[in-house]
């Protein structure tokens, strides 16, 4: 436990000195929280949006509650679009942190002296993973909280806010988010074992945000409707993907493999 703690603190004091990591961890959540808030701000002041529902995907209109005005519906749609983008945070932050922390050690050649200490590879792997997952979850949850509080101040209709806080988004933020962070870390460990440039590792690891973009465009085109079932099925699939990725990363993260095969 102590050693895991040491590793986490070591990663944080090292990795946040890197500008790329700092940018991803600090600015990405800031931007992805500010944009939907800005849209809410703009749409809640400019009066009547009743005609706009015609521009939304048909499937979404059907999904929009009966008692919502056109403006409310538009806000709910725009925000649910951005909520999907928001889910990039728990993927991008862990990918950036763990790419730099693992490839950084490879470049520094610090893995051998590290592995020569009495630490177990499990402790090291858990420490490295947590050091990437914790900031991601803090940023995701803090961003979400700021978003809810901000929209509270700007939106007249509390039912709309209730719509942001419904089961779907709670599943997304509190179940899918952590699962995403875990998959991003495991994936970037797998990538890092083969790559010797932290920037390349980060870029390759970012492939993992593609499914989120697919869902984003899917909803925009009306192919995907985010309902509770979709969220639960996504969480289940992600859980399975995680199991596979974690298994692979543990397999690669063995002392002998790291010393003799990681090049």
């Amino acid at each position, binding site marked *: 436990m*102590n*050693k895991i703690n040491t590793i986490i603190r070591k990663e944080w004091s*090292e990795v946040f000195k890197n500008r790329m990591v700092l940018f991803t961890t600090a600015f990405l959540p800031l931007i992805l929280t500010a944009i939907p808030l800005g849209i809410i701000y703009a749409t809640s002041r400019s009066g009547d949006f009743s005609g706009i529902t015609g521009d939304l995907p048909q499937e979404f209109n059907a999904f929009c509650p009966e008692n919502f005005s056109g403006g409310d519906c538009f806000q709910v749609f725009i925000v649910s679009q951005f909520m999907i983008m928001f889910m990039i945070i728990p993927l991008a932050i862990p990918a950036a942190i763990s790419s730099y922390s693992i490839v950084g050690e490879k470049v520094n*050649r610090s893995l051998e002296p590290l592995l*020569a200490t*009495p630490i177990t590879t499990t402790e090291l792997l858990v420490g490295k993973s947590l050091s990437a997952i914790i900031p991601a979850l803090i940023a995701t949850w803090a961003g979400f909280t700021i978003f809810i509080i901000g929209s509270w101040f700007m939106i007249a209709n509390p039912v709309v806010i209730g719509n942001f806080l419904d089961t779907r988004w709670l599943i997304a933020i509190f179940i899918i988010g952590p699962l995403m962070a875990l998959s991003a870390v495991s994936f970037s460990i797998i990538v890092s074992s083969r790559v010797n440039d932290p920037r390349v590792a980060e870029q390759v690891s970012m492939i993992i945000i593609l499914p989120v973009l697919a869902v984003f465009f899917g909803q925009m085109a009306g192919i995907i409707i985010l309902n509770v079932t979709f969220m639960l099925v996504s969480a289940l699939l992600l859980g399975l993907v995680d199991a596979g990725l974690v298994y692979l990363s543990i397999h690669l993260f063995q002392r*002998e493999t790291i010393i003799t095969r990681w090049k």
Partner: protein
Amino acid sequence: MITTQNLTKKFDQITAVENLSLDIPEGEVFGFLGPNGAGKTTTVRMLTSLISPTKGNATVNGFQVGEHDIDIRRSVGLLTETPGMYDNLSAERNLEIYASLYEVEDVQGQVEKYLRFLGLWDRRLDVAATFSKGMKQKLAIARALLHEPKTLFLDEPTAGLDPEASRLVREFILEIKQQGRTIFICTHNLDEADRLCDRIGVFKTRLVVVDSPVNLRRQVFGRKVVFHLIQADQSLVDKIAGHPHVSEANLVENKIVATIEDPETHNPELIRILVGEGADVQFIGELRRSLEDVYLQLVKNA
């Protein structure tokens, strides 16, 4: 204390270490000497339980490799081939991290002790990236000592250092030796092995020979004695070369260099021969063959 029996490591087709059997008692400084690719680093990695042997056994400080790996890692210090410091962190922070990973109780105390011991105390707050190669090496030695290991593995401790820094590192090693630790040094530097080590193992995938530096020189070349004369010529050389206990004699300017089985016994007689032939002997001395010659010869034959 280190013992190995038939320790072997194969990588796919390559055999890096083959049937290595060693017995290094507590407190000995053992030099592990071999050319590039001999398998020195591979051996050290097996003995520090970083990689597992393909075959054979080894114990370090009484712990069995492959069974008590955590105990081994707790009781040994390792200076890796490259220092591998966290460049963005200060010297002090680097050592603090390792002290807590090595379960040191008094982290601050041990970090200060070894920063002072290696003369880095004044630079403790500087990030490791600003350190010279020699300073990084010293920091890495400090890191290997933080938990007061009984056995220390040093993989090429002076490689790439200038003579001044090398000398400093050698002095530290001698000081560490005084503390009764077992030290296993991989090196190419024969002069260094000669000065530091109680015994040297010449190694190239297999162990070629293990002996003290003095015996190694004797074993391979006999001993060379130089006779300085005012005037030397070939007839004198032939007289010396004809002696039954002299295996070789050569004329070098006004000196005769002879390889003699046992100089203590045969020198007086050889001097009498020279004087009898009318030579003026100024002085005589033993030529210390560099260990390098011994080593090159051994490795060539291996």
